[in-house]
Structures are given as C-alpha cells and as structure tokens.
C-alpha cells in the first residue's frame, strides 16, 4: 500500500500565489559533474562529519549557517533584494522621510487636481480625490510589510509547532492534521480568504491577517513535518536518544535546527505571496477598506480609469511587484545558500 502524500502542497495558490511550490523545488543547480575536486563532496563531507554529541551538532550548524552567509554575501541578487527590502522597511516605518505629505491629513488632497498625470511637483500625479499619488504609494508600503510579516510569522510558528508534533509523534494527531490540511488545500487560497473575510462586518488589518494565517499554516506544517520525519531517523538523533535525551530536548536541540532551513526559505518567498494576496483581496473590495492606505485599494480605485489615468494603477502596481520580487529573490538566494547540493 503506497499512498503518496505530496509534501509540498499547493498553497491553494493565490492568483498572486507566489507562495506555491514551484520555486522551492527549483534548484538552480549548475551542471558541474564534479571532477575529483568537486567541492560538493567536501561540503557534504564537512556536514556529515561529527555526528553524535551536542557539541558537534552545534559545530555542524555553525558551519552550515556561516557557509550560507559567506555564499549570500557574494550573491548579487541577494544584495539587490536585501537593499530594496531595507528601503521598503524604512519606507514602512518612517514614510515621512520619503514624503512631506501625509495622505491621511486633511487638506492633503485638492479635488481640483483629480487624476492629473505625473509632473515635476507631483512625481506620480494625483488620484481621483486629487491626493498626491506619490505620498499614497509611499504610505502604502506599511500595510503590505506588516501583513506580510505578521501572516508569515504567525503561520510559520503554528506550522512548526503542529508540524513538529505531527511528524515526531505521528499517530492520530498526524492523521487529524493530514485531514485538516487536505480540506484547507482543497480550498483555493483566495476563495477561502474571501469566505472567511465575508464573516466580518468590518475588515481591517487584524481580520485580513487572521484569514491569511488560517489558510497559510498548513503549508508550513507539511513542509516542517516532512523535514522532521526525514531528520528523525538519522543516526545522530538515534545517538541522542540512546544517551537518554528527552523528546522535547531532541526536538528543540536536534531536529529543529536541521529541519528549519526549508521552512525558512519557504517563509521568505511566502511573504511576497501574502503581500500579493492582501493586495488582491483589497483590490477585490473584500480585504482592507478605505480609508486604509493600501496598494491593492489604490489599484482597485484606478481600475475604471485605466484608459484615462493609467498612472493611478501603474505606480502602486510597480511598488507592489518590486516588493514581491524582492522577497522571492531573497528566498531564492537563501535556498541556494542553504542547499549544499547547489554549491
């Protein structure tokens, strides 16, 4: 009896579902069939050496992460993505540094300048209300970053805790989790989010976060569960057990550090997907509501004006896409750095 459980689940897949499995599976591994000097072997050897006690586990981990860091620093795409994300983070925390106008202030908008195009004193033009579109777009970063980080942070923690329990202990709890994730995976992410958000009369940041966390954690669970099962049967866990380590200690000390890498890579890429999902929901009118400042809302408001004022859609779209792209590039770079095979 062999039932395959696809471990990398479809994240239901938002239309913006960059959270889907493809990127994770996709190693951009080069094709050097290592000559006798292939460094792959060296790394594998370094990683394989020193099984057994806690000290060498630390050493192995330390070398994995420091190797990864060394590799990252040389990766141009990583540097670009990190720089962009740094700028976007500052933009989210201190939008005032970038724009002297706060779109929420009274008097920030002049109806007379409604829909005017980009020009020297209003780089991105004005929206329907006549507000400065540049200020709109700058202030829109905050919501995206908060939702991306909160949702991914939340679903990662839930997924790791439940995934560790399911993978380590198996049994009825594992079966229950498998069925629940089946149900959530059966539901396309966006549709699920629309359904959940429909329950709330008022929709703000907390509601949107909640809906996306509810739909997001099963992926992390499956990913982490698979890692845990793979690590559980290794010799060094057996050794730790033989030396009398408790289950809790084995999970935290031995399994977690070794199983965390794929989850971390997935989470990084997922931030981009979640940001896109929020924008999509807000765009559809089922996510954040005015007067919230969100790229999705801005794009939605320009929907009917695509013929006359395309700049209203263009600028928030560009910022949104660059943000998502940055997280994806970061995740890609992280994966390459953490996967010994691709070195």
């Amino acid at each position, binding site marked *: 009896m062999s039932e395959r459980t696809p471990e990398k689940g479809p994240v239901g897949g938002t239309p913006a579902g960059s959270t889907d499995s493809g990127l994770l599976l996709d190693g951009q591994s*080069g*094709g*050097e*069939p*290592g*000559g*006798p*000097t*292939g*460094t792959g072997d060296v790394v594998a050897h370094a990683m394989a050496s020193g099984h057994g006690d806690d000290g060498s586990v630390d050493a192995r981990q330390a070398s994995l992460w420091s190797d990864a860091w060394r590799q990252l620093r040389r990766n141009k795409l990583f540097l670009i993505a990190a720089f962009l994300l740094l700028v976007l983070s500052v933009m989210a925390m201190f939008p005032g540094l970038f724009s002297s106008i706060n779109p929420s202030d009274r008097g920030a908008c002049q109806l007379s300048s409604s829909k005017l195009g980009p020009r020297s004193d209003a780089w991105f033009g004005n929206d329907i209300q006549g507000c400065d579109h540049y200020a709109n777009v700058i202030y829109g970063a905050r919501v995206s970053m908060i939702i991306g980080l909160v949702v991914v942070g939340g679903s990662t923690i839930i997924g790791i805790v439940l995934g560790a329990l399911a993978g380590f202990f198996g049994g009825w709890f594992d079966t229950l989790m498998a069925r629940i994730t089946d149900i959530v995976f059966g539901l396309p992410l966006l549709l699920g989010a629309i359904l959940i958000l429909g329950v709330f009369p008022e929709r703000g940041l907390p509601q949107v976060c909640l809906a996306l966390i509810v739909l997001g954690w099963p992926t992390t669970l499956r990913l982490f569960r698979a890692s845990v099962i793979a690590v559980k049967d290794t010799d060094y866990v057996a050794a730790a057990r033989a030396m009398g380590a408790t289950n809790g200690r084995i999970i935290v000390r031995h399994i977690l550090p070794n199983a965390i890498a794929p989850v971390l890579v997935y989470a990084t890429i997922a931030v981009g997907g979640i940001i896109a999902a929020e924008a999509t929901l807000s765009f559809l009118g089922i996510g954040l509501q005015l007067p919230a400042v969100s790229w999705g809302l801005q794009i939605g408001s320009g929907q009917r004006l695509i013929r006359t004022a395309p700049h209203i859609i263009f600028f928030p779209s560009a910022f949104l896409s660059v943000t998502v792209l940055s997280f994806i590039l970061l995740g890609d770079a992280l994966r390459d750095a953490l996967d010994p095979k691709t070195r």
Partner: protein
Amino acid sequence: MTSTVPQAVPAPKPTVTGGAPLLEVDDLSVEFRTDYGVVKAVNGISYTLAAGETLAILGESGCGKSVSAQTIMGILDSPPGFVTHGEIRFRGEDLLKMSAKQQRDIRGEEISIVFQDALSSLNPVFTVGAQIGEMFRRHRGASRKDAKASAIELMDKVRIPSAKERVNDYPHQFSGGMRQRVMIAMAIALDPAVLIADEPTTALDVTVQAQIMDLLAELQRETGMGLILITHDLGVVGEIADRIAVMYAGRIVETGATDAVFTAPAMPYTEGLMASIARVDQKGQRLNPIVGAPPNLAMLPPGCEFAPRCPRATDLCVAERPPLREIVPGRRSACHYAEEVLGA
C-alpha cells in the same frame, strides 16, 4: 586468444589486412573545465586493441580510466569535458574528426559499452525489452515486433531465465546480476567490434561477479570482439585479460602482458597494487596498502605523480616526470627506476 605486442610508436595507417589494430588511442588528453579550475583527467594516454583481444585498464577510482572510456564512446559531457589533444582511431579513422552523425552510427553498432551500475544506467520507465530492442530499431530500422523478438533472443543468449516472459518487465523488477545481463545484452546486440566494460562487476555480489565475467569472456570468444575491461579489481584482470595498462593520475604508468606484469611489476605503483591484494599463499600476513592519496588532478606536481606515495622516490622523481618507455620488448613503464623495480 592472441596476444599482441603493443607498439612503441603509433602504428602507421593500417591496411585492410589482419593484424592491424582495431582501435588505437593516441596521446589522448581530456580535461574538465569547472568553476573551480581545470581538472586534467586524462593526460596523453596511448594504447591499441586488436580484434579478439582483451585489454584491462587498471587503476584507482578517479585515475581517468572511465573518462577515457567515455571519450572513446563519444559520450563525454561537454562542457565541462574537453578533448584537448590526441586521436582515437577506429579501423584507422579518427573518431574525433567524424561528424556527429557518423559518430552516432558507430556508437552501439561498432563500439559498445557496459556501465558499472545497471540499475541507474537503465531507463526506469521503459521495459528491458524495449531498451534492448531500441538498438535494432535505431541502427537496423527493425519493426517493434522484430526488435522485441531479437531482444528475447539476446536475453536468452546472456542466460536470463524465461526471457519470453520477462521481456516486458521493468529494470527495477530484476536482480542486480540479471540487470547487468540486460546491460550486456544491450551492448552486444549488434555484434560490436569493440566492447568496453566499465567496472562491469563492481556493484555486484562476489558470486555474481564471477558469472558475469565468465559470460563476458564467453561472448568474446564467440564473437571475436575486442574487449576493454576497465576495473580496479586485480582478481578479475588476472583471469581474462591478455594485456594490462595501469593508469595513475590520468596517465598510463605501465603496460605489458598480464602474466609478465603480474609476476614482475616494473613500476612501484603496480607493485603496491599487487601487494595490497589478499592472496591465498599470503594467509596470515598483513596486507600492505599504498599509503597516501592520489594527487589532485587540478594541481598536478611537476615530477612523477606517484612520487609522494612511492617508497623508492628520489629527488629525480620529484623534479622530473618519467616518460612511458619500453624497458624490455612488450613491456613499458613510466618509472625512472623501472629496471631496478623489475629486477627486485
């Protein structure tokens, strides 16, 4: 079996008459250009093979013996692998200068190969019958039905029991030994003139190893093909090889008739190999492994590659690389002190 004496100089273009070597490898060099530097895997090797002859190429893993085999087959991955020098003449014509199509027509039809690991070398998603039959379909334009009939015949020939029933099975449904028989059936399907067996028994149980070697020897007697046996197993070599070429660090370091080399090696490395195998008459004595590891092929030393591990190494060995030279008729060695080693 005939035993040919290796030529000291590359043979002149052969005439159609017999005696001319079937395959001549002449000063062949292959390197891999990787991100981590250039790895010189094969450095100017030469040998010849006549019809009906068995040449064993002996060496540790990573010495370039498999790379040279893949180069002869024309299946070297390029990039990163590049032939930098030399010729491979089959019936007098340089394979390396042929068009891609001409090369493909020879591949499988005239020169064939058996790989080490039959499980990974057979395609998991096709039946063995289809994979053996593909030879007939590709080279002889056989119909699907005829190809299958030929496949069954071949499976009988390599003594796979109940071939008729098993022809539709997939590789994973066979045992290791049977899978290797499938590989062999595929390789000899079109009666090739040259068969290269690249460590054909390494992945198998000892008892099965003997059966496979017997099968190869028998097939060779029947068909008169030239056999290049690549191995690191001295026991295998002694039984069926006419001649031996010992490779070390991408270079041939000693050649000669099997018996001669076995009884009196003329190169310390060969000597070390002999000393490191268990023999019945040495029961109770310690084995003597060669100490140290082969050199890094990306950074070859200027002198003799074996010098760092050689018990006889002198300053001369470290400074100057000894060429492969004839020491007695039919014997060549790449050691400054070959005569002394031979006399020892």
